[in-house]
């Protein structure tokens, strides 16, 4: 969160404190030079004077900033609707082009906000007209300049705006931004690249997304979901086969998040991976892949021989596939330790239909206390229609 900005923050802190101390020292020296008072009083007076100036200046600045902001909001609400109306009239063909550059100069923020709003909600020819207005106003050039800015806030914002434009000419700009050390910039660059909707760029975006932290993946997953079928052909199997474990887990998590029955080669093989995290993610992903014999065999194997965590996720996947063949293994899981695995087994049985539920209902009174508690909780959750979270991802 903070690591990239540490030197800059430390430098700024030291500069301000040094400036503050130097100012006090200068005032103190001046007072001593004119022999105004004793050294102790001089230092006290210097401190009080500098501090009072500091506080007064900052209070005044924040008070003025508040007043300016209020005034800007008042003006904005009046002018904003006029800017939006003129833009809307143009894009719907009700009026001819106006002098966009002048309008942009008069109301830069409002014009930009209106253009972005329209770019986000329109398609096809209408969208192109909005883009042409933005281009004519000089707004797009401004975004392109911003996308190469050294200031990360400005760069990230510019990329966010360009992602609404979806112009293939900017592809190189986006690819360069993918190499930025700033997570926000990389995230915006990913969105821009996905927005271009070109096969080679989408594969690049997927392989870059799996290297990103969970936050970026969570934000980008829906954008990538639209292209899941295309990605399942080459990009996903490539990552699953050759990437390091962390990236494999990320790729599997994206598959789970999409929740689409896409056949991807190599998921079942990963359920026997030596790395526990990869194994668990692959077993979770099995819940969303199309069912076949290999998937069923893998789930039965995990339920009978896996670690407690393997069994817990395999139970949920077995229920998702309505795998009634797994009832004996699931019953064994209910009797097993630890509690989350037992609870997941019981939950799966409840979801597998009346026969499995009856078995659980009949058995629970004879079970060990912990297994009985898991069975009771699952039956209760099923009856009341509540989803019990038997240990989330």
């Amino acid at each position, binding site marked *: *969160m*903070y690591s990239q*900005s540490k030197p*800059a*923050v*430390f430098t*700024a*802190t030291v500069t*301000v*404190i040094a400036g503050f101390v130097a100012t006090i020292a200068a005032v103190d020296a001046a007072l001593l030079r004119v022999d105004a008072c*004793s*050294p*102790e009083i001089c*230092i*006290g007076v210097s*401190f*009080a004077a500098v*501090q009072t100036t*500091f*506080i007064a200046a*900052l*209070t005044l600045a*924040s*008070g003025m*900033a*508040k*007043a300016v902001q209020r005034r800007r909001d008042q003006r904005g609400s009046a002018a904003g609707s006029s800017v939006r109306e003129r833009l809307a009239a143009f894009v719907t063909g009700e009026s001819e082009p106006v002098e966009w550059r002048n309008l942009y100069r008069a109301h830069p923020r409002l014009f930009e906000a209106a253009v972005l709003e329209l770019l986000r909600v329109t398609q096809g020819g209408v969208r192109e007209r909005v883009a042409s207005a933005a281009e004519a106003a000089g707004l797009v050039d401004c975004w392109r300049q911003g996308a190469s800015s050294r200031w*990360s*806030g400005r760069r990230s914002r510019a990329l*966010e705006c360009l992602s609404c434009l979806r112009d293939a000419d900017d592809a190189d700009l986006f690819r360069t931004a993918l190499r930025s050390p700033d997570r*926000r910039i990389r995230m915006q660059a990913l969105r821009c690249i996905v927005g271009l909707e070109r096969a080679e760029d989408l594969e690049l975006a997927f392989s870059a997304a799996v290297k990103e*932290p*969970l*936050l970026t*993946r*969570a*934000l980008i*997953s*829906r954008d990538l979901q639209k292209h899941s079928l295309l990605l399942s052909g080459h990009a996903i199997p490539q990552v699953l086969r050759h990437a390091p474990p962390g990236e494999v887990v990320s790729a599997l998590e994206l598959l*789970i*998040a999409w929740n689409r029955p896409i056949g991807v080669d190599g998921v079942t093989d990963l359920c026997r991976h030596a790395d526990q995290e990869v194994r668990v993610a692959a077993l979770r992903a099995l819940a969303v892949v199309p069912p076949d014999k290999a998937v069923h065999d893998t789930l039965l194997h995990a339920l009978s021989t896996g670690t407690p965590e393997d069994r817990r996720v395999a139970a949920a996947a077995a229920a998702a596939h309505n795998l009634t063949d797994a009832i004996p293994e699931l019953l064994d899981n209910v009797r097993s330790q630890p*509690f*989350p695995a037992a609870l997941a087994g019981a939950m799966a049985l409840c979801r597998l239909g009346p026969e499995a539920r009856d078995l659980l209902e009949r058995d629970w009174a004879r079970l060990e206390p*912990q297994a009985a*508690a898991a069975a*009771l*909780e*699952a*039956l*209760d*959750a099923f009856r*009341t*229609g*509540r989803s*019990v*979270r*038997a*240990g*989330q*991802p």
Partner: protein
Amino acid sequence: VSVPGFRAVFELFETGIIFYVFSINAIYFCLIVLGFFALRRHNARLSAEEFDALLRSPLVPGISVLAPAYNEALTIRESVRGMLKLRYPNHEVIVINDGSKDDTLKILIEEFKLYRSGRAPTGGIATKPIRAIYESRDPIGLVVVDKVNGGKADSLNAGLVVARCPLVAAVDSDSLLEPESLLHVVKPFLEDDRTLATGGIIRVVNGCTVKHGRVENIRTPRSVLALFQAVEYLRAFLGGRVAFSYLNSLLLISGAFGLFRKDAVIEVGGFATSTVGEDMELVVRLHDVWNSRKGGYRIYFVPEPVCWTEVPESLKVLHRQRNRWQRGTVESLSLHRRMILNPRFGVVGMFALPYFLLFEMLGPLVELLGYVLTILGLIFGMIRPEIAALFFVVSVLFGILLSVSSVLLEEFTTSRYPSTLDLLLLVGAAIIENFGFRQLLTIWRAQGLIDGLRGKKGWGAMQRKGFQSS
């Protein structure tokens, strides 16, 4: 010893105290400046579009919100409603009724249509006996654990063993959470998989208007005592904690709102029931246990307002609260004394813990001594007026600088108070609190230090007024 000799020793002692008080305030000022620049660079806020994407994402981990309640009949309805309405894709609210003597449980059962459910504690941490677990007949994620009274830490442990999500948020049931609070505090967990715990800014709800469990109209408190505390909260959260978090040496995540990785908390043994400062103790213990782990760990402070709490408006209750907080600090530091000045613990051992020991724990006693000696010295002519003036500068004027800087830091960053009048009121309070209120707190904290060293236990009751509804 001759009178001039005694006077010289006295003045030397006084100078030592002045140097000490100056050091506390100077370090704090440095932390505030560091916090300011860290906040400016942080850019933590998610856009509205990103918020929506996270709200729809199945990748966001589930959170169990743990809210211990003891005699909270006055505010429990609003608080639980607020917690249920939090904007988060996957959360459950677990209210732990810690053997309340009032109608807390009855209100919850009637208001939220609770029934005795089959949910079972998973074990792993010993707690006082759980009498029953209730869930709602309505499709809401509410669980109520009814247990034998055992204190706040014991209640949180009971919540931990009933929780079903990988992250747990420990909150006060008398607090109101911001609708997006969970999304704010979960962000470090999503950005950095080494994150163990996060906390956010706690704000003072007194003076604000509350509707259906949400703070609607944000105003500064009308009561002077609460106004001073509003300034104090800003100073504590925006100044110190941002900077400590920046240095990965945050020692305190407020008990009013903190988010933790459940497995990490269970692994270190849960919340300590032997201390009244269970919030600080847990964070220090997490540093202790996780310090030697490969790959490192992070404990973050999120500079976003996440929670609103009602502060005491009576001196008696405030006295009790501050005494307890000080005892909590003493207990936490004494339990983990082997970490202090231990280079193995890095910045935590070499800076944060010594800072807390020297300035947060012992500070009030030394400052109090300074006031007494200055007054006595002036009365008996043992110190020069110039030295007394210098003490006034380092304690009171520096205090004003710190308080006003914190208020302005709030204004430049989160800026939650909408009107200029509120800003002026806060600046005014930041100046006036240094003439009387701060000295009163110093006396109470010094008392708390002595009570803590003597091993005094006990929580003390908080009298609630209830939220001001619109």
